[in-house]
């Protein structure tokens, strides 16, 4: 059992990997060790038992179609202990730190700084159609453990470009965010994650006039799979600096996580729909940092074509000079 120093509450831990267990878990989600059970009542001698319907008293049998015993006479269904698979809810809400107006200005500023290949009038002609504050959701996890890796790199290579390397390192991951949003794309979420200040969070949804709360789109069993995938991706990132040499390929990692703890967060953002030349685009403004904006913007194909022609012309001139 693990005791939370702030509340004094105890939560059960897996005996193998020391990750916290949920009350309904039959097995540890990280290492698959079964959760100990209170043994069934000891039977002193062989007897027979008939499972009787609580409603009408008839004998019932387990039905494959519904995955539980059901009475054929009155249709009563008996419950069997199974792992609960609820849709998860946010526990921590990161607060908004910028206003609607600041979000609009942030969008305008972003549109003006997207570079040469955007239309020159993008900033002036883009009109905000809709602005929606929302909390998108994600998991944040900490984990410890061991990571083993193997990869090819150019270090120590001989005739071939590559030489094999392997290694092992302790793994400590802290506050790794895994998006669980259905409304925002993975790329959009990744663009926003780094700028959140999670030191000041609310445990109840903060009051906001128009903000909507996104729900976790996946159930617990699916969530654990996503977190395991993210754990491996994070381990891969940690392994890269350990590989000797300047270049590498074919990196494989194996992770033995312990003490994996995940929390459910809601992150603030503004979703803005803006219109440019009758076409709608979407941008997301960070709910705390007005300089962090991600989204889509139109491309000036005339400018792209002009640059391409200039490059072709330059190549032609160089080729002509070289030939001469």
């Amino acid at each position, binding site marked *: 059992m693990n005791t939370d120093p702030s509340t004094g509450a105890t939560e059960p831990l897996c005996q193998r990997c020391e990750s916290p267990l949920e009350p309904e878990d039959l097995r540890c989600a990280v*290492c698959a060790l079964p959760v100990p059970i209170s043994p069934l009542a000891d039977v002193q001698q*062989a007897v027979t038992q008939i499972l009787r319907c609580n409603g009408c008293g008839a004998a019932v*049998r387990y039905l494959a179609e519904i995955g539980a015993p059901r009475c054929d006479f009155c249709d009563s269904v008996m419950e*069997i*202990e199974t792992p609960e698979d609820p849709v998860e809810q946010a526990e921590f809400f990161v607060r908004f730190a910028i206003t609607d107006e600041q979000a609009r200005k942030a969008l305008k500023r972003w549109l003006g700084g997207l570079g040469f290949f955007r239309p020159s009038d993008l900033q002036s002609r883009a009109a905000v159609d809709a602005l929606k504050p929302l909390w998108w959701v994600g998991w944040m996890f900490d984990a410890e453990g061991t990571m083993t890796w*193997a990869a*090819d790199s150019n270090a120590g290579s001989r005739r071939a470009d590559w030489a094999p390397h392997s*290694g092992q390192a302790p793994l400590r991951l802290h506050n790794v965010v895994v998006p669980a949003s259905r409304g925002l794309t993975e790329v959009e979420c990744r663009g926003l994650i780094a700028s959140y200040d999670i030191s000041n969070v609310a445990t109840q949804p903060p009051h906001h006039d128009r903000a909507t709360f996104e729900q976790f789109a996946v159930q617990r069993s699916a969530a654990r799979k996503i977190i395991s995938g993210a754990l491996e991706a994070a381990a891969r990132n940690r392994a890269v600096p350990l590989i000797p040499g300047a270049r590498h390929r074919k990196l494989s990692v194996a992770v033995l996580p312990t003490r994996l703890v995940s929390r459910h967060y809601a992150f603030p953002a503004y979703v803005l729909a803006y219109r440019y030349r009758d076409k709608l685009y979407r941008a997301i403004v960070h709910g705390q940092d007005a300089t962090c904006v991600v989204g889509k913007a139109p491309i000036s194909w005339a400018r792209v074509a002009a640059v391409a022609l200039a490059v072709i012309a330059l190549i032609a001139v160089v080729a002509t000079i070289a030939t001469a």
Partner: protein
Amino acid sequence: MTASPANEPFHGLGCNSCGARLNVPPDERTARCPYCASPNIVMRPRADGEDPTFAVGFVLPDNVARERARKWIRGAWFSPGAFLRSDVTAIRGVYVPAYMFTAEAHVKYTVSIGENYVVIETYTTTDSKGRLVTRTRTKTVTEWRGLSGQWASYIDDVFVTASKGLHNTELEAIEPFDTRALKRYSPKLLSGWIAEDPSMTATQCLELARAEAVGQIGHRLSDHMPGDRHRGLKYSTQLVHEDLELILLPIWILAIKYDDESPLVRLLINGQTGALVGQPPRSWIKITVAVLAVLAAIALTVMLGTRGVL
């Protein structure tokens, strides 16, 4: 009423509904009363064994299992006619005992990693006019480098049979079972179904499970290796924090005796996913006729081709 010895049927058990005497085989956990058809669950003293920890409930209903079995029999074209007419109503849903093994694996390995590179080599040949010419070509060569390292991961969901009646290779053939649908064992799951007790000891099954886990580790290690290819993979495995849990797996079993002289044919269907395994008998007469027909068709085609008909 006391328990009978483990190898003798329980004669003294009375149906919990009508009181009729039940004859329960020692390796079964359920019995249906022949008089009132009530599904009885046998509750035994725990001294001779353990209760299962988990069970995977049946998902495939009997009508679907029967249809799959029927389709499998009809698809066995080269089987004797009597087999093709076999009755599938005898199919039974059985909770088969198995052990579920999990562990933490620490592996040390050595391997030769092949890194490919391309060389340009010169060779001499004759051109279309018969002259000797020198040409170049690229050739991929593999440079072999030794690598040693460590690998660590959890091993989960290794299932091995705990029933002498079901060979482990048969169980492997109908795996996997989706362990997300695992249920805590409860006699409620067995009501109306046949449930078998383990006939293999945990010690026997542990050895089987370890061997299967080490095999799985070999596959995962192969995927872990860098390079363009590898050979000579050798590894030593240390399994720690091992856990072995008795589990009941849902399997539809159909035993077919299509004639008195032929051996029993057995079909197994995964009661959760519908995956099936079985070896239908072969009719050598049908196979010979088919081969002769193919040969005759080839001969006819060649003959007609020779005579210019085709």
